[in-house]
């Protein structure tokens, strides 16, 4: 296995397993690539919203990836975006009708964000960046990995927002008045006052930022252990941000400084008075000023 062929986490590039883990962890669309922020911030007011939205997106993502991969040689390059939209929109309509029929409550709760899956950045991004260039099997698993990565991320965001902002966990009252936890612990829990801002938009940003920070810390720790994380966040907004151990950086800088100092010392020794050249005076051009 050559170095170039190496995919995420040491798996062979473009195999189903590699694609799956790549979407779930290494290139997690929400926490690493930071795409698809609109549903991430808008629907994560509760964990169940996150799960439903995530699974709906996963379904659309996996199937549209597969179909687009199949059609990749048929679709002309110049009209690929409309072609992608047609494929994606048909699956979204499917999801929408199924949800309306079988989970009307969730359909009501998610509202306009279900049809908006059509223009979800993650689906477009994967169609454009992966499915339109690769075989059907890895494309399908890429969709599943990315979709589940998205599902996990927004479920966790929803879980925290719901818990802090409302005291509930999957609609079960854990903290705050009417806590289901019995005994003295329950009494203690029931004293909790929900911090309402977390249900609102600002809370989504705070929770998302904390999760991204944790993700970066995980990445940093992996780097410390010597694992290859260069594949982390390829093509994402944070791909060019390299996280280094501050102590290492300091040592490097000190070493650089010492080397520079040593060089300067050497240079100073080498310069002899005879080496210094006095620049000759440039001959003054007469008449130059007058011409102007």
């Amino acid at each position, binding site marked *: 296995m050559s170095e170039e062929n190496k995919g995420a986490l040491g798996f062979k590039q473009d195999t189903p397993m590699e694609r799956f883990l790549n979407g779930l962890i290494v290139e997690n669309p929400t926490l690493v690539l930071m795409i698809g922020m609109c549903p991430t911030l808008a629907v994560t007011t509760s964990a169940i919203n996150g799960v439903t939205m995530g699974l709906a997106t996963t379904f659309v993502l996996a199937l549209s990836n597969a179909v687009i991969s199949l059609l990749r040689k048929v679709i002309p390059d110049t009209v690929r975006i409309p072609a992608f939209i047609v494929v994606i929109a048909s699956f979204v309509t499917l999801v929408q009708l199924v949800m309306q029929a079988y989970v009307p409550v969730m359909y009501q709760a998610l509202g306009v964000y279900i049809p908006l899956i059509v223009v979800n950045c993650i689906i477009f991004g994967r169609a454009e960046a992966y499915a339109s260039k690769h075989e059907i099997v890895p494309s399908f698993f890429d969709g599943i990995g990315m979709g589940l990565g998205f599902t996990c991320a927004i479920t966790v965001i929803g879980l925290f927002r719901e818990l802090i902002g409302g005291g509930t966990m999957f609609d079960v009252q854990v903290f705050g008045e009417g806590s289901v936890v019995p005994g003295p612990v329950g009494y203690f829990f029931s004293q909790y*006052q*929900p*911090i*309402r*801002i*977390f249900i*609102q938009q*600002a809370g989504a940003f*705070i929770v998302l930022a904390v999760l991204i920070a944790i993700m970066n810390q995980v990445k940093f720790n992996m780097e410390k252990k010597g694992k290859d994380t260069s594949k982390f966040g390829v093509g994402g907004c944070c791909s060019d941000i390299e996280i280094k151990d501050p102590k290492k950086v300091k040592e490097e800088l000190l070493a650089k400084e010492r080397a520079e100092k040593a060089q300067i010392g050497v240079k100073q020794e080498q310069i002899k008075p005879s080496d210094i050249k006095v620049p000759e005076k440039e001959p003054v051009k007469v008449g130059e000023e007058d011409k102007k």
Partner: protein
Amino acid sequence: MSDMMKVSSNPHVRSGVTTSNIMMWVVIALLPAAGFGIYNFGIDALIILLLSVFSTVATEFCYEKILDKKITIGDFSAVVTGLLLGMNLPCTAPWWLPIIGGIFAILVVKMLFGGLGQNFMNPALGARCFLLISFPALMTNFVTDTYTSATPLAALKAGEEVSVIDMIIGKIPGTIGETSMIAIVIGACILIMLGIIDLKIPGTYIVSFVIFIILFGGHGLNGAYISAQLAGGGLMLGAFFMATDYVTSPITTKGKYIYGVFLGVLTGIFRVFGVSAEGVSYAIIIGNLIVPLIEKYTIPRAFGIRPVEKKEEKKA
């Protein structure tokens, strides 16, 4: 002789003004208003102020201890934040409200953005708005044993009569530090005389607010209404102590005027057209957010540098 021969790099002349010095004076200037709040609302107010200051200072200390950074609680900025936050809470607040507010102010608004000098908005106001959105009922509960009526601003909005004299002295319900106009102005005078703040921001803020109220307040040039709007709510506290925060206000002179007018108009809009009677804190944090923009467009031309158009003229 040896003193004269000492060679050091510049600056050679240093002023005695340091961050901790300035912050200490701000604390001292805040004391009259805080003291009046304690006199007005009793021991509850004192407890809330102490909890709030303790919370901010402890958060800063713990954060820096855990992350192995230089401990900066000695510069008193956390004390100022805590005191301002406490003065922005009603005295009926439960004990954990100032503590959560203090943690949010220091941890999220100040430290996560890089500590003093890097915070993008006033930490005390950021925390106040955080609490106001999270616990609206607790944050606007001004009913105490002494005061059972609504705040003067709310009464004014409902079209009731208010006593302007009471408002100027401060014998009114409200948050701990905002009630007494006199005490706040005394503190502000100390800061102005010491040159710590100048009148550019508070002056333009108050003047533009008054003009806005005259034009759109619906009462015209009614002296009682205008002075009640000025003395009521957090306008004075905000204008003198929070809008003038060094970190979150523009440094250019032109920028300061723009910032003051912006705050005045925004406060007026919130108070006249908004749902709630008060709008100073939101006005100031929104103002804080546009400060980088204001500074970008009001940078004065450096001495000796020609504007770009003139250069082109010469070339042609």
